[in-house]
């Protein structure tokens, strides 16, 4: 390739945006970026992409071991309480709805509602985690401890990882709630809520996959 060939390809598209003087208000992302997505949002998407493989690995491990003979204790498939877990899954699902409501409230600068919905989301999430703690204790009572057999290790590790993700999400929601109370979450920062929401919905979707593959489809 010669230099001249390169010179011939004049600049295509991508004209610079003025002197970076993009006025912004509460609803448009505050800064010009090459993709149009804010750094924070793009970063969250990337992180969630990475998380897909984390859960992918854990789910595969569980699926590998759930068909194996267990050498001690009950196989995990025998002690599921599907109605109970269905209810707690429903609770988690509903928390995605309240998360959406929180975001739309803060975008309308309706801060009181936003706080209500943020708190509701956190509460629904906590209910789910509480349900998980209850489930774990009953399973242990029925003879499946973490070290009892392969399936126990795989089951508690997978669902435990998910539970920790929900718990971190609850912490973020509560932080947003407190920030909002102290006036540090103006409508201009609605995107922060949106980003936490992305995480929350992701964790929710992962649960739906886990619930289907781990609980519903028989081994």
């Amino acid at each position, binding site marked *: 390739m010669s230099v001249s060939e390169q010179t011939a390809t004049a600049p295509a598209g991508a004209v610079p945006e003025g002197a970076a003087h993009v006025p912004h208000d509460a609803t448009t992302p505050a800064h010009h970026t090459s993709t149009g*997505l804010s750094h924070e949002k793009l970063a969250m998407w990337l992180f969630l992409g*990475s998380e897909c493989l984390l859960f992918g690995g854990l789910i595969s491990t569980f699926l590998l071991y759930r068909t194996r003979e267990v050498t001690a204790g009950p196989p995990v498939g025998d002690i599921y309480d599907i109605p109970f877990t269905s209810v707690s899954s429903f609770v988690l699902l509903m928390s995605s709805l309240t998360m959406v409501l929180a975001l739309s409230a803060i975008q309308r600068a309706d801060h009181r509602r936003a706080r209500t919905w943020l708190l509701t989301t956190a509460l629904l999430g906590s209910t789910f985690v509480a349900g998980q703690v209850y489930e774990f204790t009953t399973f242990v009572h029925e003879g499946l401890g973490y070290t009892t057999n392969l399936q126990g290790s795989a089951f508690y590790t997978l669902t435990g990882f998910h539970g920790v993700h929900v718990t971190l999400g609850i912490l973020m929601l509560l932080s947003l709630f407190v920030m909002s109370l102290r006036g*540090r979450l103006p409508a201009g920062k609605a995107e922060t809520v949106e980003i936490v929401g992305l995480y929350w919905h992701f964790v929710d979707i992962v649960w739906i996959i886990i619930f289907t593959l781990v609980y519903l489809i028989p081994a």
Partner: protein
Amino acid sequence: MALTEERPPLELTAGDEPVRNPLGAFSRPSSSYGWRSWLTTVDHKKIGILYGATAMAFFALGGLEALLLRVQLAQPEGQVLSPEVYNQMFTMHGTTMVFLVIMPMLAAFSNYLIPLMIGARDVAFPRLNALSYWVFLFGGLFLYSSFFLGGAPDNGWFNYAPNSGVAFSPGHGIDFWTLGLQITGIASLLGAVNLITTCLNMRAPGMTLLRMPVFVWMALVAQFLLLFAIPVITVALFLLMFDRLFGANFFNVEAGADPLLWQHLFWIFGHPEVYILVLPAFGIVSDVIPTFARKPLFGYPFMVFSGIAIGFMGWGVWAHHMFASGIGPVSVAAFSLSTMFIAVPTGVKIFNWIGTLWKGKLIFTTAMLFAVALVSQFTIGGLSGVMHSVAPHDTQQTDTYFIVAHFHYVLFGGSMFGIFAGIYYWWPKIFGHKLSERIGKAHFWTMFVGFNLTFGPMHIVGLQGMPRRTATYPEGMGWDLMNLLETIGSFLIAISFLMWVYNVVASRKNPHAGADPWDGRTLEWSISSPPPAYNFDVEPTVEHLDEWWHRKYGEDEHGRPVRREHFTYLSGVDEASRRGGGDDPDVDVSDIHLPSPSYWPIVLALGLPLIAYGLIYTYWLAALGGLVIIAGSFGLGLEPSVDPDAGHGDHGDHGPDDEGHDQELAEVGAAAGGDDDEEAS
């Protein structure tokens, strides 16, 4: 605007920040000189230097371990190391070179160069960048502390199950390995998110994806590989950790576990990992070779797309590491084929480098020598790779020194030579003066001879059946001479490394090299050496691939390049700009506001080794580490990235109506993930 609507009395108006110093624990650090500034810096260039210096220190340690291995193997029935110590040495050697040398070395280049090459003022999240570095450093130190706490890990860098279980490895070595790599993994993951966001989001106007220098492209692909490979090894590490610390059964064969699970998880990470290790080095030489061949890179789009293709195909070949483990004929055939195919995009790159060299006016600087050596040595390593891909052939080679020869030709002959090419090439940019070319060439030739003397003969003894990872070998196998030569070669490598160290010290007083000592092609050469903290006076507007070259050269009627009489450097080069005026008379660089230094990254990072020691020794320590991390996260998250109390430069004319200047601040503030710029709206 929504912000001015009536609202309940509790609300403050947007942008009012009632708390300036969240948690109030520290006042904000402000120095930008002295050793303390290195602890709190968020400047991508300083962080790049920190990464590089740390990686080279680990290189010395990993090299020392290698020398011990070679001394042991110099003669049959070696007595220098006990088998136990030998195992620790090759485990720590491999782990160090992969995770603590080449990966951070490439992080060093990526950090330093990506913003400069795409015309940005910093990375997307400067404080997160600092956090990555400290997490990496503490992870590495944690791993090395195992030597003083009952013995280092001893199960190889791939740490196969069930050998890694408590039954077979009762000491804490493996725990240090699992936890240490989890910590450095966090660093890599944060770095990947940060650098990908930087590449995608912070390109200067006109810097389209296909105008990015090849180094940026290859680093970007490698960061994507990290993004998706790190979680896979994280899963493997967690499972192993739970087995060892909490009695889980993932690799407990007695409970019916499948040890191949580890191999699959490890190599699904492991093969993309080898491309993580080599792609950025490919990027380095793809920028070095055109500069010293005085020609544009041959087939830029092929270079980019073959890199992307490698990035995708790299996910479909992992089981070629498991041909001998009984995965079944169908899997073996499939992975054998896919492995042969991956050599195609790799070959494309090699031909493009040759095409660039072809009929170029070659200038053999030290950097160019290292780059050309990469091309030839990597070709040898790639060829032996294709030999492994033939599964029946591989069953003869696997676990012999032939494999050791293969991966050293790709990793040392490839990645490390590329890294040295990069070091010699960008040294004047980073430190303002060149390394001595005379010592550099001596360094190159010694390393080149030493490397080939060490790893060339391994092909031969490998095909003769000498097993790897075995502390001694008997007399009379016909391996003695080759092993002695290999040991001599390894000492040549050590000498060449010392020459480099000497070069670094001896070259300190070299004359200033100027902004563009090699007549470079890419934007980093358009600014002073070393670059000012803010990199560019104004965001450059990019119109070409090899933008800086096109600003320097036009062409005559025959299409030959002619150097223009007038072109402007983009910052810090002429007198005015060193006084703070910038090359562009309209810009006052003291108005550029960079993210402020911060204590939080190092504090937050300290929590991780605390947790790790705690998991091994006492959970109280882990709880303390957890508290440090929570406090650190809130501190980091709530602190504005640009210190509102920091001075706005030392000029007095800064009125409240200086909207344009605040906008500048906002740009950089956004870079930092800070959102404290509402006052501009």
